[in-house]
């Protein structure tokens, strides 16, 4: 049975996952990534919208958060670690908590950050120290003496020293305490207009392309030191780099890591790490604030070296890095590749964290999203996709290419409303709920035609005549309700519930609601013969029976009392070929609704027959049959009527009890008939002793 359900849906970011940008519920900039304890920790700046009284078109940052991930797709926000008004040396409400860094040395985590000091005079750099990469970080009361500038980066070099880089490429050695500059750093006198200042450390970018250079990030690889940094090549920043054999230079300029952002975002700022053998570039871009490039978001790409140690230029992508688990929300609008007519735009230009949508304008338009892991999907799974359409249309989710194997086909047949909205199109009640769905976000749920294996690429193709836009996709496994009965006898569960039943495909038994199931109705209808041997059969799995019976036709439109009293029903003779299934229920309640969904012609207006064989090692006296059923049911033990539950019932544990009965030594046959109109049919059955304790000292046989 294939459901196709259309509802509106607007995504709310609940978890941070995958794709660029990687932090999707807040701004994040100037990313410094570090690997601690086999996890990636991300220490970005935290852009915010400036509060009233602050300059509205400038950078505004009041605190820092730290994030971590083990797979670069799922990021956990560990919350705020350092905030401007709790650092003694920082000028209150200066909103200048700019690009930070964090390193691990001698059992402690040292978090370096620039800000505007109380004392005035540009920027200083302070340290906060923690025992864990997630904090709590305790800020030192004073900034580091001798550093006047922004954007600290600390290099733990293989020569055993720690070097701090900052500003436009200046570098100085740190003392072992990591809180002070070493005494043997070079010093120089620099003129700023009429003022002369003593500057500590080496200017590593002297003579290199260094216009408005900032945000230095230094690392060591294969015997080379790399000093990487944003600078302005023409009008906005690029990421460039230089190499040296010594941490403090001299450095030789080697070229670009990333060119200017195509949309004019003025800044870029970055870090580079090796995680599990792969190099990654962390950088930022203003995806969630396209009209204001002071609010930025962290992105990640893979980074590769040439044989000579130089770095290959990196192109920014929407897809970013990492493998998405198919059961996570995947923002497919951040595609890897698409037909040339596909465009992306923000879903909501005010609440930009709703992220992006990708429009596939016409039949044949496609997009591909790489690297989705299907390993956790079973064969009984379905897809949820958030989509909107300009009219009735259809699209497919495929594997690998625009002509690849179809994973799911989605028809959007109800986008355009009936011409007269008040007409009972689609039938009565339903018709009244039909609305104009054009341009509305809908969640489509559809069972999979094919379940890919392993890690593969997803492709969405527009197969119809209207434009569609997609937001996200998510795969789910259906719950397991039954498994085939095993050959060996089983016991009831610890609460005494019987999980093993022979269930017959449902008999179609339309009715106008469940309140018609009076005692007389049930005795009448359950004692009618639907198939031969109804009260004596000990069926085997797969055994078929021919049902021939008179069926009273209920008015169309079940449920919720739409019909108070059916008129004199029309009676038809119906023939159904029905199959018995030997099943073990996964739950204490046997979900007949799901059984009917799988095996039946209909799920509502049905009559089920159930049989189970109980094997008692000895006679068990004075027990009661305890049943809950949705809806009415009748039960026979060894051919004797034992219990009747009439009316519109829910499945309630121990709803009704038989009188005291005896389970005889050897085989006992328990037979039940359950009838249901609207609603989810199920039942639970157990035996209880005189004190209300479950009876469990018997087994249930599979009648193979």
């Amino acid at each position: 049975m294939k459901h196709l359900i259309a509802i509106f849906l607007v995504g709310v970011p609940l978890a941070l996952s995958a794709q660029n940008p990687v932090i999707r519920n807040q701004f994040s900039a100037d990313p410094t990534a570090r690997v601690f304890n086999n996890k990636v920790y991300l220490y970005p700046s935290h852009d915010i919208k400036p509060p009233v009284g602050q300059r509205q078109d400038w950078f505004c940052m009041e605190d820092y958060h730290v994030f971590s991930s083990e797979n670069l797709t799922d990021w956990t926000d560990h919350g705020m670690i350092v905030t401007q008004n709790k650092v003694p040396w920082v000028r209150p409400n200066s909103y200048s908590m700019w690009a930070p860094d964090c390193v691990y040395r001698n059992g402690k985590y040292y978090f370096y950050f620039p800000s505007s000091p109380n004392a005035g005079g540009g920027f200083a750099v302070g340290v906060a120290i923690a025992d864990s990469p997630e904090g709590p970080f305790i800020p030192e009361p004073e900034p580091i003496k001798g550093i006047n500038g922004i954007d600290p980066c600390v290099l733990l070099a293989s020569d055993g020293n720690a070097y701090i880089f900052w500003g436009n490429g200046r570098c100085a050695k740190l003392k072992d305490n990591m809180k002070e500059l070493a005494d043997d750093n070079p010093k120089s006198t620099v003129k700023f207009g009429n003022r002369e200042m003593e500057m500590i450390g080496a200017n590593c970018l002297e003579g290199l392309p260094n216009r408005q250079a900032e945000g230095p990030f230094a690392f060591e690889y294969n015997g080379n030191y790399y000093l990487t940094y944003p600078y302005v090549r023409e009008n906005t920043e690029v990421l460039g780099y230089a190499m040296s054999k010594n941490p403090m230079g001299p450095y030789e300029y080697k070229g670009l890591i990333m060119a200017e952002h195509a949309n004019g975002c003025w800044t870029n700022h970055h870090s580079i790490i090796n995680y599990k053998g792969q190099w990654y570039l962390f950088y930022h871009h203003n995806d969630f604030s396209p009209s204001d490039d002071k609010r930025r978001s962290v992105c990640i790409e893979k980074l590769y070296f040439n044989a000579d140690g130089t770095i290959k230029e990196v192109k920014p992508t929407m897809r970013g890095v990492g493998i998405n688990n198919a059961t996570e929300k995947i923002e497919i609008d951040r595609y890897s590749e698409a037909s040339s007519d596909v465009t992306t735009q923000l879903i909501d230009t005010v609440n930009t964290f709703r992220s992006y949508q990708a429009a596939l304008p016409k039949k044949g338009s496609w997009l591909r999203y790489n690297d989705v892991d299907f390993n956790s999907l079973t064969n009984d799974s379905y897809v949820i996709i958030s989509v909107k359409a300009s009219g009735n249309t259809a699209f497919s989710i495929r594997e690998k290419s625009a002509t690849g194997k179809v994973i799911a086909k989605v028809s959007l047949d109800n986008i355009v409303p009936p011409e007269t909205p008040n007409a009972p199109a689609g039938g009565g009640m339903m018709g009244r709920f039909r609305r104009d769905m054009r341009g509305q976000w809908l969640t489509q749920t559809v069972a999979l035609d094919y379940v890919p294996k392993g890690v593969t690429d997803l492709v969405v193709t527009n197969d119809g005549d209207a434009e569609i836009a997609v937001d996200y996709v998510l795969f789910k496994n259906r719950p397991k309700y039954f498994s085939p009965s095993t050959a060996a006898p089983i016991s009831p569960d610890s609460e005494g519930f019987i999980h093993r039943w022979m269930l017959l495909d449902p008999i179609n038994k339309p009715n106008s609601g469940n309140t018609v199931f009076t005692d007389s109705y049930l005795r009448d209808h359950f004692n009618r013969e639907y198939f031969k041997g109804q009260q004596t059969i000990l069926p085997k799995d797969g055994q078929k029976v021919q049902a021939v019976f008179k069926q009273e036709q209920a008015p169309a439109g079940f449920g919720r009392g739409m019909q108070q009293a059916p008129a004199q029903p029309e009676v038809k003779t119906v023939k159904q070929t029905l199959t018995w299934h030997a099943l073990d229920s996964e739950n204490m309640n046997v979900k007949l609704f799901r059984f009917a969904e799988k095996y039946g012609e209909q799920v509502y207006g049905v009559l089920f027959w159930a049989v189970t064989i109980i094997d008692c090692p000895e006679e068990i006296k004075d027990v009661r049959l305890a049943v809950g059923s949705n809806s009415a049911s009748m039960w026979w033990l060894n051919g004797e009527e034992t219990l009747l539950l009439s009316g519109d019932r829910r499945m309630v544990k121990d709803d009704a009890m038989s009188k005291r009965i005896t389970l005889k030594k050897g085989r006992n046959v328990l037979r039940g008939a359950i009838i249901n109109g609207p609603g989810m049919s199920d039942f639970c059955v157990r035996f209880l002793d005189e004190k209300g304790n479950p009876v469990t000292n018997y087994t249930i046989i599979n009648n193979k």
Partner: protein
Amino acid sequence: MKVLRNILAASTLLVAATASAQSGQPFIHDPSTLAECDGKWYTFGTGGGGIITDDGWNWHSGAERPGGGAAPDMIKIGDRYLCIYGATGGGLGGGHAGRILTMWNKTLDPKSPDFKWSEAVEVCYSDGMEDQDAIDPGVLLDPTTGRLWVSYGTYFGTIRLIELDPATGFRKSGNKEKDIAIDCEASDLIYNDGWYYLLGTHGTCCDGVNSTYNIVVGRSKSPEGPYIDNVGRDMYHGGGKMVIAAGDRKTGAGHFGRTIIDEGVEVMSFHWEADFDMGGRSTLAVRPLLWKNGWPVGGDQLKEGTYEIESERRGYALELAVDFVRMNVARAGGFGGFGGGQQANAAPPQPVAEQKLEDVVSTWPSGNIPARIGDYMFRPHQKWTITAVPEAGGYLSNPYFKITIAGTDRALAATEDVEVTTVPAFTGAPEQLWRIEQLTDGTFRIMPKQIPGKEGTNTKYVLYSAGDSTPTLAEYDFKSDNSKWNFRQH
């Protein structure tokens, strides 16, 4: 005077119908928990709108909620109202795929310039494939932790629990759904005295006079369950203890909401699927909510009739301060009639007639007579007739009542010096109108609508035992039995 009497007599006839239901146009299905805004109460139902009452008793249409869908709930958080509702789902217009949304407003008054709903945001959904149906949310702001919980779902699968951020109304980041019950719908969560309670609606919905809808409850020490009923059965296995079901010519109680009016004064709002006195329509009900042995119990509507008004303090009865008139009935059987066998040959005992109003009324002064509290002897000066005065309006759960000596027009009244007296005839004056509310322990508080010389409607002073024998008006205090009374018919 005569004219007034006739009006009163006519309105008394109406009372039989109106005193047992919310007055006016209380027509609603799936009412949200009552929300107060600028002195008015609002409740919102399935569809678009809702109903409003200025006084708590007379309801009229006019509340507005965009978004359509089903079964909203409403809660005031800080100075804003959070509305949570289900769009589609419930088997309507697309099966059991549903979504639940939240939105804010500064006011519930559509005429206010501040009336503007924020854009609705989704907090959860059911995908149509699961045993789940994301409609019917009920919300609880946990008074002990400040956390905001939502239960939702229908018979189609489970009742689920999620957590929202009370600052934003968004889903709390990283929160995962938890299944806490099956086989009910229209659920709600409440907290009382260390326990969390999950209320669900069981039975048949939407079948008019045949609806068996009823409200059941389980409780837990944690908002995340398990919710266990009074016989130890988990609501996840269908358990539940009855809170309210059909009665008083109404069937199908559904969609519980709790409103705390004062310490020890609570009401529950819900709908009747069919009110037999309102043409079988679905109406709003507001009933006292009682707490008995740690369980919520639906109280009855106070019925008109003649009662002893018994003080919870001493057990004495409210009475007129008039002379005690002895009954001249000879003591039968000598001194005390004790002793085995003494009366063996006497005539069989004959019933003794009770003292009648006409036996004593001539001994009463004609002007105001103060009230007193004394031993209950079922005498005329101790029998009070409670009659609704519907044209005087009401409060949550009841209309105002007059309290008169049975068979007379002599009415209990508040005085300017904050004492209590009786006036020879009921005039409809606000100090002669009484607000009677059943408290959570089953007793009642009795409160004059107005105290002469004091501005506005009284919400502070109640009929109060100053001494065992002395009634007065004093500030309501749930912790004191002096504030409490019982209406007894015996």
